[in-house]
């Protein structure tokens, strides 16, 4: 089965490049926090955090190009259930004030 050997790793420069993008995004998120964007401050902060997390999951954790396709399903299902936890809880708390 040697021809099916996993070769998901990239070059050293590629990983350092992803790391550099992550550092730039960290500085960006810290600087943007000092600019008044009204209700969009937390939106931008979470958007940048999600971009960073996606880069780590896809390239550092090698979900992109994984030989075991079931891994992707497990990852997506994990975040799906987290989304259920957050949205259903907030759907409750955010709609209590109308009473």
């Amino acid at each position, binding site marked *: 089965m040697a021809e099916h050997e996993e070769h998901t790793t990239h070059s050293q420069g590629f*990983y350092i490049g992803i790391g550099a993008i992550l550092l730039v995004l960290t500085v960006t998120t810290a600087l943007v926090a000092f600019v008044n964007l009204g209700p969009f401050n937390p939106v931008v*902060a*979470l958007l940048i*955090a999600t971009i960073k*997390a996606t880069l780590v999951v896809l390239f550092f954790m090698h979900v992109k190009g994984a030989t075991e396709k079931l891994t992707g399903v497990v990852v997506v299902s*994990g975040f799906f259930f987290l989304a259920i936890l957050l949205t259903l809880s*907030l759907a409750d708390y955010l709609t209590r004030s109308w009473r």
Partner: protein
Amino acid sequence: MHDSQSTAGPATVMQYETENPALRHHFADAQQQKNAASLGMWLFLVTEIMFFGGMFCAYLIYRLMHFNAFAAGSQQLNIWMGGVNTAVLIVSSVTVVLAVKAAEAGKRKVLVGYLVVTVLLGMTFLVIKGFEYAEKFEKHHVPGPTFNFTDKFDDNGKQIPVNSKEAELFFSLYFAMTGMHALHMIIGCGLFTGLAILAWKGHYTPTYFTPIENGGLYWHLVDIIWIYLFPLLYLISRHS
């Protein structure tokens, strides 16, 4: 009939054992064993996501209910220490992925080097975190009988009233979430110290380095949790 069976069975087993000593007999080949280990690790990481997810959910609800106190509390956190720690963790994630690459290439000393650097970066994170916690104790921002929060001032230096109980809630969540994250960092440092020792002894080969890969997955997940904790805890309403 009987003879051919008894010779065919052990011969196949022998062939696998000589090919790869790390291959367990219930797997068809090394790739299947690796996929199974990776999938199991991801299932564990999903439980970790849900575990931290509960705290993120509590944070979100209380932040929406007591936004002013959360903003005032957040502005008291040390953005420099939090920011530098974010950078330290990102660099450590790069060294982890380079360690996995070195393991795949069979470069033992490079692998050990990256693992040791990762542990040192993890400890750097914890030391900075320790200084940050010390600052919280000095400012009486640790929830409990000595908690005191009167630090919110407007542009003219006039004190703005902040509900102390609500601010205490913010700091409770701050300590619960960063504390649980720090515990994961301590476990990660222990884990990587063990991996470094085994790597030094030559336990890992280009055909078998699954513990390095799965340890790396754990480290990256702890990094991702901090990537969310930094903006959510440190950067609330910084512009005001």
